[in-house]
């Protein structure tokens, strides 16, 4: 503590018009506690004055899975490779909810915290990071429910489940990268806040969340695989349910590359535009 204080007393800060290309990681580490506190603020505030409290975390994915089961499983009777449709769609939603949660939370993070941004300094990246952290927590809870579902339904747990992070990480990268670009521009063009939910909804149906890639006509599959989420969701289901086929290797590599590229672009755009946020928000 004393060493840190001594170090802090000679800390120099230079404020000028120069702009960075990538975030200052050392500074972000210094503010890690704020990431946790913002995340906790969002979670505790969300379930204050509710009777069921954090039980509401379970409601969303279960209701969606139930709805999908009815519409796609019973009415449309899509193939699920022998897995009960409810479990099938819940597995898809696990990846999807991570993606859309990170995207929604982070893309509104600047416009939603204008009061803070114009009044206090802290690395602005702290806010999208904290919304992402709380989404990750939700995903962890959903994963526990998933395990229970797998055991109850008799699908069982296969070894591939350990590879799940391999699919969830690019999903988070993809969402984070796009969200950083979106929120950087939403500061000036609020239209983005209206477009994002619509685009997300569209993307939900364009990705194999409620149905499998097998249900897509073969001549459309390669086109489908251009959506980086396709391989991610399919891969997730492969990890959780086993049995199904993995998307082709090129598609997986492509998705990973797009995810990393998007994150990088997002970080650069955000860092370059960050100094101007307080002036336009």
């Amino acid at each position, binding site marked *: *503590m004393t060493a840190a204080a001594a170090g*802090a*007393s*000679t*800390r*120099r*800060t*230079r*404020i*000028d*018009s120069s*702009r960075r290309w990538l975030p200052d990681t050392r500074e972000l580490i210094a*503010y890690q*506690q*704020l990431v946790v*506190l*913002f995340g906790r*603020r969002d979670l*505790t*505030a969300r379930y*204050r*004055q509710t009777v069921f409290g954090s039980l509401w975390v379970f409601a969303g994915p279960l209701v969606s899975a139930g709805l999908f089961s009815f519409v796609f499983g019973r009415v449309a009777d899509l193939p699920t490779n022998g897995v009960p449709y409810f479990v099938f769609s819940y597995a898809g939603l696990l990846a999807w909810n991570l993606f859309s949660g990170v995207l929604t939370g982070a893309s509104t993070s600047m416009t939603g915290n204008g*009061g*803070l*941004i*114009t*009044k*206090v*300094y*802290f690395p602005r990246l702290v806010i999208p990071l904290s919304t992402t952290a709380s989404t990750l927590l939700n995903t962890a809870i959903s994963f526990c429910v998933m395990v229970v579902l797998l055991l109850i339904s008799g699908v069982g747990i296969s070894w591939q489940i350990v590879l799940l992070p391999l699919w969830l990480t690019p999903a988070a990268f993809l969402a984070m990268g796009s969200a950083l670009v979106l929120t950087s521009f939403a500061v*000036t*063009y609020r239209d983005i806040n209206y477009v994002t939910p619509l685009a997300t909804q569209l993307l939900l149906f364009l990705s194999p969340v409620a149905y499998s890639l097998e249900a897509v006509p073969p001549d459309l599959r390669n086109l489908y695989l251009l959506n980086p989420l396709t391989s991610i969701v399919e891969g997730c289901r492969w990890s959780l349910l086993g049995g199904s086929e993995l998307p082709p290797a090129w598609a997986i590599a492509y998705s990973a590359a797009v995810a990393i590229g998007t994150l990088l672009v997002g970080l650069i755009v955000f860092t370059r535009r960050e*100094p*101007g946020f*307080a*002036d*336009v928000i």
Partner: protein
Amino acid sequence: MSSEPAITVSHLTKEYVLGLTGRTNSLATITRDLFRSSARRTREPRGRFRALDDVTFDVAPGEVVGVIGKNGAGKSTLLKILSRITHPTTGYVELVGRVGSLLEVGTGFHPELTGIENVYLNGAILGMTRREIDERLDRIVDFADVSRFLETPVKRYSSGMRVRLAFAVAAHLEPEILVIDEVLSVGDAGFQSRCLDKMRTIASEDGRTVLYVSHNLVSVEHLCQRSALLVDGRLEFDGSTHEAIDRHLATFRQSEYGEATGVFDLVDGDRSTGNYDAVFRRVDLRPRGGELSDTVRMGDSLQVEIEVEGLDEMPEAVVIATVGSSTFQCLFRIHENMKRITAPHERCTRETIVLNIPMLPLTPGEYHIDLQVKGSDVRGVIDHVSRAATFSVVSADVLGTGFQYTSHDGPMLVAWDWELRPTRVDA
């Protein structure tokens, strides 16, 4: 300790592009413009506005510097740059040490969270670690005086409680450099004085560097030896707080009336009675015997220069100056027989009587001076000008405590002395 400045501000300039902020060309505007002749098109003015213009100054470690200026003079922009919220267009700022800024009390409070949760959140926003907050928690809660409500959501707090808690967190932040903006505009009088005391402690005893921006000149005077005066984004003056405030008040008056004030022509003054054997021609007001001005700081001296004509013929005349306010016709009156006024020269037709009031005993407000001159029999009025001069008294830190006088404290300022003595109780 090195002599290196804690804050270096070098050629700092901040430009805003007018019409760009918050007013994006909407599709509606663009479409409408398609159907309009080019002359009638909605033109966004793209002028540039300099909120700060080439500002340069240094602050030594442990120094407490005030920043004053009118609204829009660039004070807030300066603080926003210093607290890293916005970036300068050109120039730079260099800070040595940890910076804590308090631009608006209670920023980052979440209404749904409890008091204690908000203390941790707000502390982290201001850059404190969890351990630092743990260590200071008791002092923060004590200072804010909200211990009973720590588990209550902040949305149920009164606004006063919220402010107290927020100030308490920020005041216990203990950074090397503290940047404060207008914190005292909220809260009751008791809490305000506690805040001022705390800020004074932060500044003096803890040896921190403080940059304090306020419209409350009393608190600036109370806290700061040195002040910077910003006018239209430029650093107009940097030096003693007293002089900075004087200059600030002078610019204020000048722009309001367009010319230097403190000069009153009485040739066409408001006269009721008199035989006009002698007449008042004009009055000049010089606070502290210096520049002409009609703004006097509380507790300062005031020199009143009265130009008269024809008084040399009346050695027995009595000159009377009456100071009144809008609510009191007469607050105090000064009589003087011309016989008792020393004249180091041969008497002549036009003369100037100089009246010196070492300490003007008035609290902030608007006042006026009536002038009368009477013959030796006291009943015969020679000249009488109502409201010969008007002036205002503004707050100053006369008590040395930062206490701000208002009209509720009555119009008069008196000198006093307290003492405590044991009372002997005889059994």
